């Protein structure tokens, strides 16, 4: 008898920052600037006209195409995670230096070269930052 696979989909990307994390996905189609785009106190997205506007980043697996904007954004990501209102992992299509440095100093796993449109907000996903894999365990 064949063993049942535990995950629905496994997406293969590139490992950026190591670590293993599991949580509910929050998916965006738009690039995100942490400086000015996210309230550092609450982890709420405040960038106007952003598809995540009003959403809370706390404990999510944050999936978006790539970052943009000031390099100070790296410090914002650090601070969000340190205050417990940040994401548990980052999944990008293209890693950019602001988000990479942010994930390094915040110590959260990060994977890129993933088509984030394959993931839906609310899916239970697992990010393996060492292998560069994103598993969708349960559809939301």
């Amino acid at each position, binding site marked *: 008898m064949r063993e049942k696979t535990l995950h629905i989909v496994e997406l293969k990307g590139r490992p*950026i*920052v190591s670590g293993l994390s599991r949580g509910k996905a929050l998916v965006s189609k738009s690039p995100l600037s942490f400086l000015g785009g996210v309230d*550092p106190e609450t982890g709420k997205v405040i960038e106007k006209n952003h598809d995540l506007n009003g959403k809370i980043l706390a404990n999510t697996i944050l999936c978006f195409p790539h970052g943009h904007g*000031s*390099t*100070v954004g*790296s*410090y*914002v990501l*650090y*601070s*969000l995670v*340190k205050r417990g209102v940040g994401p548990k992992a980052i999944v990008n299509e293209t*890693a950019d*230096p*602001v988000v*990479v*440095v942010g994930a*390094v*100093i915040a110590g959260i796993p990060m994977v890129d070269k993933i088509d984030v449109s394959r993931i839906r907000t609310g899916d239970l996903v697992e990010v393996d930052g060492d292998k560069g894999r994103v598993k969708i365990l349960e559809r939301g």
Partner: protein
Amino acid sequence: MYLNKEEERIYEGERGWAYQIAMKILVKLGDLYEADKLILIDSAHISGVSYKTIGDTAIEFLEALVKAGAKSKVRSTANPAGIDYNHLEEMVTLPKLHERQARIIELYESMGINPILTCTPYYLRRPREGTHLAWAESSTVIYANSILHSWTNREGGPSALAASLIGKTPNYGVHKSENRRADVLVKVETDLKNEAEFGALGIHVGRILKNEIPSFEGLLHPEENQLKHLGAAMASTGMSSLFYPCTSCPKSSDTLETLSVDTNDLKRAFESLSTTDEAPDMIYIGCPHCSFEEVKQVAQKIRNKKVKDGVKLWVCTSRYVRRKTESYVKIIEAAGGKVISDTCAVVTWLKELGVDVLMTNSAKTAYYAPTMNRVKTIFTSLDECIEAACQE
């Protein structure tokens, strides 16, 4: 990316968290840009000093680094802050801002970073040609590559700080000579009269080129100060980190794509930098921070004149140049102007100082101030700035 034994040990945490995190930043960026190894740097220049731009979040990270014993490995300088503590009468008076800004400066200083806060560290010490640097601040980077002929990528605040702590940077981008070749020939078919027109040219070219490397043709005997304005402006609208002013380039550029800039292009770029024709509340000279010659020029133009009541004239420069130009500073201050250091109009709380209309000869400032400072701008030459600042 290849790491030697010592680098690997730092990466594994043997020298503590601060150096481990700095090494991780360099390694991850190196991997991202496919660097082959780390290379030694002569110096680092760090951005992210003004409390107005970095806020509390960066302070938390800097606190953690200092607590973990972080110290700079190489000569390191830092960008302007939000406050000049020697001219408090000119500064915004909110105690919380003063206290937080002072903390940021203290944290950088305790890591061994020079507390002369300026975007023109090359006036304090000019790095030797061909040395590798890890400099942040786009105007400083483009000046280093194009005018000083020392080599640096366009670092951000965190990566420059990491490089400062390790004394190395990943070998990619313009650290490799094959990535320093010009991609585009810019034919300047108009005579540039002053620093403001050099700035307008930079704004125009930066908008078109993004991150390509331009080689200019037709800049007749440009001064370093004028090229400083050209580079600062080009790095504001584009991602450039290098250009060739080519006063002595061989005419071998036939194979390059060409961009021609005529009088109308320049005029349009120039005019796009003014958003109002109202009277200015502040006249601002010194973005990037003034050189010795620029402070001298202001003094010569303002001698025996008087700044109008209700108008502020700010001339911003490094503390170092201010000391070297003391006699000129006296002339400017006798006329009612202020020679400010450690900060600039863009990274201080301009709106809170009551400024609504800012006049400047800096294309970079005119480009950023409407969004970063929420003020209206008038962009013009130094001559016209001094004229507008003074009484008849």
